[in-house]
C-alpha cells in the first residue's frame, strides 16, 4: 500500500482515536490502558507476515518470539480488561444517591 495512504490512515486513526478516547471517563482509565495494551498487540500481524517471509532461521526465530510476545499482549490485555470491567457494578436497588456529573 502506498506510503501516503498509510500516512493518511495514521492521521485519521490518531484523530478518531483521540476523539473517542477523550469520551472515556477517568473511572475506566485503568481498563482503558490494559485494552490499549491488547490493541498494541496488533503488531502480531506484522510479526506473522515477517515470520512467513523470513529468509534465515535466525530471522524466523526472532519473528516467532515477536509473535509470542505480541500474543501475550493481545490475550493478556483483553482478558485482564474483561476481568476489571466485570468488577464495575452500579448500585442495586434504591436508597442510592446518584453521582453528580
Amino acid at each position: 500500500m502506498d506510503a501516503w495512504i498509510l500516512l493518511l490512515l495514521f492521521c485519521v486513526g490518531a484523530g478518531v482515536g483521540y476523539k473517542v478516547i477523550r469520551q472515556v471517563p477517568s473511572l475506566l482509565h485503568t481498563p482503558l490502558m490494559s485494552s490499549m495494551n491488547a490493541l498494541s498487540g496488533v503488531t502480531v500481524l506484522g510479526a506473522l507476515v515477517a515470520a512467513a517471509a523470513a529468509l534465515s532461521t535466525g530471522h524466523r526465530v526472532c519473528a516467532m518470539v515477536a509473535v509470542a510476545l505480541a500474543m501475550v499482549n493481545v490475550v493478556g490485555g483483553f482478558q485482564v480488561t474483561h476481568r476489571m470491567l466485570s468488577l464495575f457494578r452500579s448500585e442495586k436497588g434504591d436508597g442510592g444517591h446518584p453521582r453528580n456529573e
Partner: protein
Amino acid sequence: MTLSAYDLVALALVGGMVWGIHWMNSPRTAVCGNLLGSLCMLGAILLTVFRHGILTRGDLWLSMAAGSVAGSVLAAVVSMVQMPQLVALLNGLGGGASALVAWVVLRGDPSALDAVTKSSGSLALAVGAVTLGGSVIAAGKLHGKIRARPILVYHHTLWSLLSLAVTVAGVAAILAAPAGAAAALSLLILLAAFGFGVLFTIRIGGADMPITISLLNSLSGLAASIAGFALRNPLLVVAGAIVGAAGLVLTQHMCRAMNRSLLNVLTGRTTAGPQAPVEAGAQGAPAARTDEARPAPSVAVTLAQAHTVVIVPGYGMALSQAQRQVKDLSDELEARGKEVRFAIHPVAGRMPGHMNVLLAEVDVPYNKLCEMDAINPEFEQTDLVVVVGANDVINPAAATAVGTPIYGMPILHVTDAKRIIICNKDTQPGYAGVDNPLYTHDNVTLLLGDAKETVARLAGELNGAN
C-alpha cells in the same frame, strides 16, 4: 488505488475496534466494547493467516499458542493492586515485539529495502526499544524491585542525550547508508534506544509513574504503527495510531492532574523532593492530635452524628489491603441512613483510574465514585471526611509550598468539610516529600497505624455508639 476484499474486511475490523473503544465511555457498555475489540483482533489475525498463507505453519501457531497461554495466565493471576506493573510490563512487550518485527525487516532481503521501509523500520526499532527499556524499569519500580526514588548515574543528562543522539543519528544514517550497512546500524539503534529508555525512566520518581506508564503506553502504540509503515500493513498503522492517541490523552490528563509539564517529568525535575521541610500552612497550630490525645468516643460521636460522609482513599489503602474494611465502614454508615461517597483524585494510586478498580473489586458501586471536579464543591456540605491512606492529594501545601513537587497540583478540598478523620500509617510526608499542614488542623483527628486496623476500629466505634 483499488480496494481489495481484504482491505474492506480490514477496514471493517478497524471500525469494530473503534466502536469497541467508543463503548468504553460507560461502565454499562464497556464489557461489550472489550469483547467486540477482542473479536475484531481475532478477525484481524485470521485475516492475516489466510492472506499470507500461513495456515499450515505449525511453528507460528505454536508461537501464538505459547504467547496466548502466557498472557492468559498473567491476566488470571495478577491482583488489582498489581495492575500498574502489569500494564507497564505489557507496554514493554508490545514495544519489544514491534522492535523485533522492525529488526527482522531491516535485516531481511537488502534489495527489498526502499527509503520508506528503511526509515520507518529504523524508527519503529528505535521507538520500540525505548518503550521496552523504559517499561522494564517502570515495571521494576512499580513492583518494588527497583528503588522508586529517582536514580541518577554519573553525568546522567549527558548519557541520556548521548544515547538519544546516537539513536537519531543511527536512524538518519540508515537512510543514507548502502543497504548492506542497515544490519550493523540496526544493532546500534537497538542498543542506543534501549539505553535511552532505561536512562530516562530510571530518573523518574515513583510519584510520576502514572504519567510515565501513560507515555510508554502511547509509545508502544506508536512503535506498532510505525512498524505498520515498514510492512505496508494498514491494520497496524491504524490500530497503533489509536493506541498512541490513547496514551497521549491519558498522559495529558495525568499531567494536568499533577500540574506538571511532560518535559519536567521526563527530565526528572522537582521529583527528588524538597530539601527543607515546608512551613506548615496553619502557623502556630497545636501539635498533631492523635487518637491518644483525643478521647476515642469523640470519633464514635462524630461518625454517629454525620449525615454526609465522603471517603478519600489513597494508595496507602491499597498498600495495607484495607479496601474490604473501607467498604464495610461505608456499609455500616449507609445502614444508618447516611450518605456515603468516595472522592477519587485522578492520580490516586499508581496509574490512571487505579483507585476505581480497587474499590470496584470490593463491590463499591461505581456511581458512588466521584471525580475530583465533581466532589470538590460538595465538601462544604459534607459533615465528615474519612481519609484512608492518602496524603499528597489532600495536602493544602500544594497551594502554598512554592518549589515543591506538588505546588500547583489540584487537590481534594477536604478542609472545607466540618470534620476530618485521617487514617494514615504515620505523619511522614507522602511520595512527594512535602509535609502536610492538615495534620495539625483543629477539626482533624488522626488515627495512625495500619489502615486495615484503624478503619475496622472506626466501624467498631460506630457500632458501639448506637
